[in-house]
């Protein structure tokens, strides 16, 4: 069924279709309408789930951690400072290997206070052991929520579904709401290998020693390092699993084909802009303008940021003259995080393109098409003139 609704409603609709059993959330702009919608679904009886209105984001994720440990499908959502407040819990959920799904409605972080969009919130949680998927429009939001549960439960790693605050969360766009019967064909019910159960007692997340240790039967159990290595290896395996899931999704819903990178006019492009989130759709307009001038340029939206699809990035970018990374976040004192990741993926390529880094849109600073156009044109026409430091777009002072 096609409807016109907000990005937050697209996310909530995905959560409902995924038959989530336990939802815990705490309001924060611009995530709030998503949790309000979910409370409506539950309170009206449209959705058979436990909605737990906790007193903080730390507790929201604590509830999801426990609910997931007890064998139920759990969901939460947040933005900005709410995500930062969860930091300890993010690492706990990943270490405990719980397939929780969370929407991160991207917003800049304080101080100073801002409620507007950038990516500093989710990027700052890059190394917490969560899978991060980024969406470009409302259809991707609902589709990605469904895929996220599948991915999380297949590899036992939690997933963040990230989408731009306001730009996507509060704008209205047409999108297709899949049929429940199709979703049920796509997403099997959650059946974890172990769930907390008095009939099969287990002590979860106990103190674990630096070295391996035999259990009471003499079988050697992993130490902390093996457990963490498993997390890493399963994250790497998630790259292949994401591609498989994308194919299955396409078979059922007819949408898919680009699990890692969504390219636009890139086939013959010497120059490729790349970024996360809705900005890549904005850049499509800029690419069209520059193409009219005869500049062979395209744009790619990176959908899977963690685990980083190094091979796919290398294949997509190594034959280019220049790669231009646009970012709404920064590793302060160094460069954009994505810029660093892309350079590192290209390091082993036979041909290493020039890579540029633009920082823009922080705290919702308006991103003007003509600013993007100017930056991209400069990168394409005089790629050697721009150095290896981030260039800020739209600064006024």
């Amino acid at each position, binding site marked *: 069924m096609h409807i016109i609704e907000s990005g937050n409603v697209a996310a909530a609709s995905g959560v409902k279709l995924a038959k989530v*059993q*336990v939802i*815990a959330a705490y309001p924060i702009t611009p995530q709030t309408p998503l949790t309000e919608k979910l409370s409506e679904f539950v309170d009206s009886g449209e959705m058979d*789930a*436990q909605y*737990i*209105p*906790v*007193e*903080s984001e*730390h*507790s*929201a994720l*604590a*509830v*999801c*951690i*426990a*609910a*997931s*440990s*007890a*064998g*139920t499908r*759990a969901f939460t959502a947040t933005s900005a400072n709410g995500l930062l407040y969860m930091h*300890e*819990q993010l690492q*706990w959920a990943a270490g405990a290997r719980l397939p929780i799904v969370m929407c991160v409605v991207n917003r800049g972080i304080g101080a100073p206070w801002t409620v507007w969009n950038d990516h500093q919130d989710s990027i700052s949680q890059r190394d917490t052991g969560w899978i991060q998927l980024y969406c470009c429009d409302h259809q991707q939001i609902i589709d990605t929520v469904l895929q996220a549960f599948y991915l999380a439960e297949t590899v036992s790693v939690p997933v963040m579904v990230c989408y731009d605050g306001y730009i996507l969360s509060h704008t209205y766009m047409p999108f297709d709401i899949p049929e429940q019967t199709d979703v049920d064909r796509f997403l099997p019910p959650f059946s974890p290998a172990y*769930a*907390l*159960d*008095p009939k*099969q*007692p*287990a*002590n*979860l*997340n*106990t*103190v*674990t*020693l630096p070295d391996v*240790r*035999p*259990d*009471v039967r003499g079988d050697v*159990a992993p130490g902390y390092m093996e457990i963490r290595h498993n997390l890493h290896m399963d994250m790497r395996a998630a790259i292949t699993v994401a591609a498989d899931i994308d194919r299955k999704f396409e078979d059922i819903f007819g949408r898919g084909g680009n699990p890692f990178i969504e390219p636009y006019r890139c086939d013959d492009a010497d120059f490729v802009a790349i970024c996360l989130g809705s900005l890549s759709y904005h850049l499509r307009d800029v690419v069209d303008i520059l193409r009219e001038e005869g500049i062979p340029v395209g744009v790619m939206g990176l959908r899977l940021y963690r685990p980083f699809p190094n091979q796919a990035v290398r294949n997509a970018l190594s034959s280019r003259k220049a790669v231009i990374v646009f970012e709404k976040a920064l590793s302060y004192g160094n460069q954009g995080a994505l810029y660093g990741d892309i350079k590192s993926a290209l390091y082993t390529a036979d041909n290493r393109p020039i890579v540029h880094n633009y920082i823009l849109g922080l705290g919702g600073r308006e991103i003007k098409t003509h600013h993007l156009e100017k930056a991209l044109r400069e990168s394409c026409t005089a790629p050697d003139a721009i150095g290896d430091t981030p260039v800020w777009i739209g600064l006024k002072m």
Partner: protein
Amino acid sequence: MTTTSAAKTTILNLPEDELVHPGNRACAGCGLSIIYRIGLKALGRDTILVVPPSCLTVLQGLYPIAATQLPCLNVTFASTAAGATGILGAMRAKKNETTTVAAWAGDGGTSDIGLQALSGACERGENFIFICYDNEAYMNTGVQRSGTTPQGVITTTTPFSGKAQRKKDVPSIIAAHGIPYVATASAAYPLDFFDKITKAKTMKGPKYIHVHTPCPSGWGFHSRFTVKIGALAVETGLFDLYEIENQKFRLTGASEKLIGKKRKPVKEYFKTQSRFKALTDDQMADIQKEIDAKWEGYQQVA
């Protein structure tokens, strides 16, 4: 005053089922070990536990060996009550109406870093039993002061003059949420604790039990005196055993028996532990006055 005390458990009819394996990592003479063993007997096998970092985490053993036979979710320090909430949510989703969800946290995990989550859960009316074992400091990290450390106590963060502030009255804070059951207990009276858990299990909504647990390592006394010192805290009227059942307060057990009787001087209690060595005679006299006034209040209600 209501007196709804259930049939008293004695050492003869205590369940024989042992849910804590013999031999664990707690110090010799640990008050927590006593109440954990007895408390789990009262909770029974159809229970899921939630535990934050504390001496209890250590008591329960190092992976892959566990000292207890109940399923347990170890959670982050601030999130005990929220963790219990999540398990309850999952139990409702699975239509499980029998399993008891019990949180066990130290005084730090309850009264300081965990208070927000606990308050939230009490306000929401979560159907759990929350047990705070109060050893009156952060023992797991090496005896630092906590909100429930009494005035004058030497800890590693109040090293010379002792803690300047009073003990935080956590049971009263929790009782102010209007939950169905708040009780105190002591490691010196494990059967009273057993009966209080048994009663809590029959009630719906949040149940909070605050247990005084002497700690030889952190309090500075010989491990053979745990029960004696726990009893002395009650007999001097410093730590009182009571229940607040549906907003009605009543002293129980050994404390109830003190009504109208002469209590031992608090000084006797202070002399047994090196943590009180910074307390002056004047300070002890002041504390004695406060205790006397508190008991004056009890006698009037009684």
